[in-house]
C-alpha cells in the first residue's frame, strides 16, 4: 500500500532520509531507529507533508503530497501534544472527520463510534485545554480512525497511557491490522512494539538498515552469535559437556556461584535440537534456559551498534 522508491529528503545540507526503498504491506509495521534517524521525515513523506527531494513516494499508487484522495484513506496520529485548546474533544474529532471526507449524514454516529473506541466518551465534551496527556493521546487516536482509513500512521501512539490503556490501544491496532489495514507504528518502547508485531523497519542515520521479521533478522546477524543462558546447579559440569560440541563457541559464568552458564553458538537450530538429548542422557537437572538476546531490543542494539 505504501511504496518508497529510492526516496531521499534533505533539509539544506542535513539529510533526513537517504535513498530508502521499501514497501509497507497490510498489517502492523514497526518503524524504529535512534533519535535523528529519519523516522519523522519518513512519516512526513508518507503523510504528504513533505515531498521527497529525489525518488518517489506513493500511497495507494498516488503521491500523497497535498492529495485529498490519499488523505481520505489515511489516518495520522502525530506525536505533538498541543492542540486546539478551546475546542471540545468531540468538536475536534468532528472537524477532522469532516475534513477527512466523512459525509454530513454519517458524521455524528462515526464520531461517536470513534470516540467510544478510543475510550473518551465520558470526557469528549470537555475542552481539550483541560485534558491530561493520556486523554490527548486518545482523542488524537479518535481523529485518526474516525474516517475509517485504510492506512494508519501513528507516532508514539502509547505515549502517556497507563498500562491498561496501552493494552487497549495495542489490541485495537492489532484488530485493525487483522482487518487488512496497513498500520505503521513509530515507537521507542521496544517491548511494546514487540508484542504487537514482528515486522520492523529500522532506520539509522537516514538510511534503511533492516526491514522484515525480527527473528529472521536475528538469525542473519553473524557478528553476534546466539547466546543461550542455562540455569542449573551443575553449571560447570554441563559447560564441560557443551564445550565438547563443535558448534558451541564459548561458555561464560557471570554469576559468582556458578548457577548459570551462558554459551554462544552460530548454529542455534542445531543447538536446540541436540541440547535436550544431552541433558536427558547425562541426567542434568535444568531449572530453565532461554536466549537473552532473541528479542527486539537485542536486535536493535546489535544493528544500531551503540
Amino acid at each position: 500500500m505504501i511504496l518508497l522508491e529510492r526516496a531521499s529528503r534533505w533539509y539544506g545540507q542535513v539529510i533526513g532520509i537517504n535513498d530508502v526503498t521499501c514497501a509497507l504491506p497490510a498489517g502492523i509495521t514497526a518503524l524504529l531507529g535512534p533519535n535523528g534517524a529519519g523516522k519523522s521525515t519518513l512519516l512526513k513523506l508518507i503523510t504528504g507533508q513533505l515531498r521527497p527531494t529525489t525518488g518517489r513516494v506513493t500511497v495507494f499508487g498516488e503521491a500523497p503530497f497535498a492529495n485529498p484522495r490519499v488523505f481520505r484513506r489515511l489516518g495520522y496520529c502525530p506525536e505533538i501534544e498541543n492542540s486546539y485548546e478551546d475546542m471540545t474533544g468531540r468538536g475536534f474529532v468532528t472537524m477532522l472527520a469532516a475534513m477527512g471526507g466523512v459525509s454530513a449524514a454519517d458524521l455524528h454516529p462515526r464520531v461517536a463510534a470513534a470516540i467510544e473506541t478510543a475510550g473518551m466518551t465520558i470526557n469528549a465534551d470537555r475542552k481539550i485545554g483541560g485534558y491530561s496527556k493520556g486523554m490527548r493521546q486518545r482523542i488524537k487516536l479518535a481523529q485518526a480512525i474516525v474516517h475509517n482509513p485504510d492506512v494508519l500512521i501513528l507516532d508514539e501512539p502509547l505515549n502517556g497511557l497507563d498500562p491498561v490503556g496501552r493494552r487497549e490501544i495495542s489490541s485495537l491496532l492489532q484488530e485493525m491490522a487483522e482487518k487488512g489495514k496497513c498500520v505503521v507504528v513509530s515507537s521507542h518502547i521496544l517491548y511494546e512494539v514487540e508484542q504487537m508485531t514482528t515486522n520492523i523497519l529500522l532506520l539509522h542515520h537516514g538510511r534503511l538498515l533492516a526491514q522484515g521479521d525480527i527473528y529472521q533478522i536475528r538469525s542473519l546477524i553473524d557478528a553476534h552469535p546466539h547466546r543461550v543462558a542455562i540455569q542449573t546447579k551443575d553449571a560447570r559440569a554441563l559447560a564441560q559437556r557443551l564445550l565438547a560440541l563443535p558448534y558451541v563457541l564459548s561458555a561464560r559464568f557471570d554469576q559468582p556461584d556458578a548457577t548459570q552458564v551462558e554459551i554462544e553458538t552460530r548454529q542455534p537450530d542445531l543447538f536446540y535440537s541436540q541440547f535436550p538429548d544431552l541433558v536427558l542422557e547425562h541426567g542434568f537437572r535444568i531449572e530453565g534456559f532461554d536466549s537473552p538476546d532473541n528479542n527486539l531490543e537485542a536486535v536493535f542494539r546489535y544493528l544500531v551498534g551503540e
Partner: protein
Amino acid sequence: MAVATISHLTVRYGAKTAIEDLSVEVPEGCVGLLGPNGAGKTTLIKTLLGFLRPAAGTGAVLGLDVATQGLRIRQRVGLMPEVDCHIPGMNAVTFVGYAGELAGMPGSQALRRAHEVLEYCGLGEARYRNVETYSTGMKQRIKLAQALVHGPRLLFLDEPTNGLDPAGRDEMLNLVRDLSHGKGVNVIVSSHLLPDIERTCDWVLVMRGGKLVREGDIAGLRVVEGVQVDVELRLPSEPFEAAMRRRGARVFRQMGSRYRLTLAEGGTDPGRQLLEAAKEAGAQVRGFRPALRSLEDIFMEAVEE
C-alpha cells in the same frame, strides 16, 4: 528505616478527593509507584514534597512532617518532573549550579558540584550550550542532574525515560539502578512503563482511585503457586500438549508458541518432564523457565479488582 511513613492520609482538590485514607510505609531502596491515570500518584508526590496540605492524616518523609516541614523535606529530596522544565537563558552548568544555590549551596560549591553531577549523568561538552538547544535525551539528563545536585537522600523520578530512544532509555535505567543500588540514594519511580520498573525497582506500590491496592516486594509478588513452567517451542505443537497432558499437567497456550504448564506437585524434575515430552512429540524447545507473574499481570490484577 522507612523512607516515608504515611498514615490515613486524605488529600482533597476542591471537591474532589484525590487520595483517600492512604496508609503505607515506603521502604528504603528503589520503590516503584504504579497506577492508572488519575490514581493519585502525582498528588501523592506533591503531598510528600510538602506542596499540598493533607485534609486528614499524617505523612512523614525522612522523619520530617509533610504538613509543617515542607522546606526541610525539599532540602533532602530531589524531584525529576515528567514535563520539560528548565530555567530559560542558561547553559547546563549555570542551570544546575543555580539549582544547587537555590538549595542552599554556596556559589563555588554549587559550580563544582554541578560539573560532578553533569559528568555522572553523561553530559560531556554539551554542558556549555544553552539548555534550550538540547535534544530530549539531554533534557532528561539535565532534569536528573538538577535533582541530584544538592545530594538528596530521596529522589522522586516521574517517567524518567519519557521520550528517550532505546539507547537513552538503557543508560537512564542504568543510572537509576546505580543510584539506588550502588550509591545508597533512595528512589521512588513513577512510571507507566512496567519493564522500566521491573528493571530498577525492588518494591512496588500500586494505586487506584486514590487508594493503595497492592504493595510488596516485586520478587515476592511474582511468585506463582504450584509448579508452573513457561515453555517456548519453535513452532506450536499439538503432540507436545498431548504429551504433557499425559503426564498429568495442565497446558495453557499463550501467544504464538508459548505455553504455561502447571505440573503435578511432587513429581519429577519439571525440566526433564518437558524435555522428554518434547522429544516424544518431535517439538524443538527454545526455552523454558519457572513461571513468574510479570509486573504487568500483577498490575492488571490489582487494578481490575
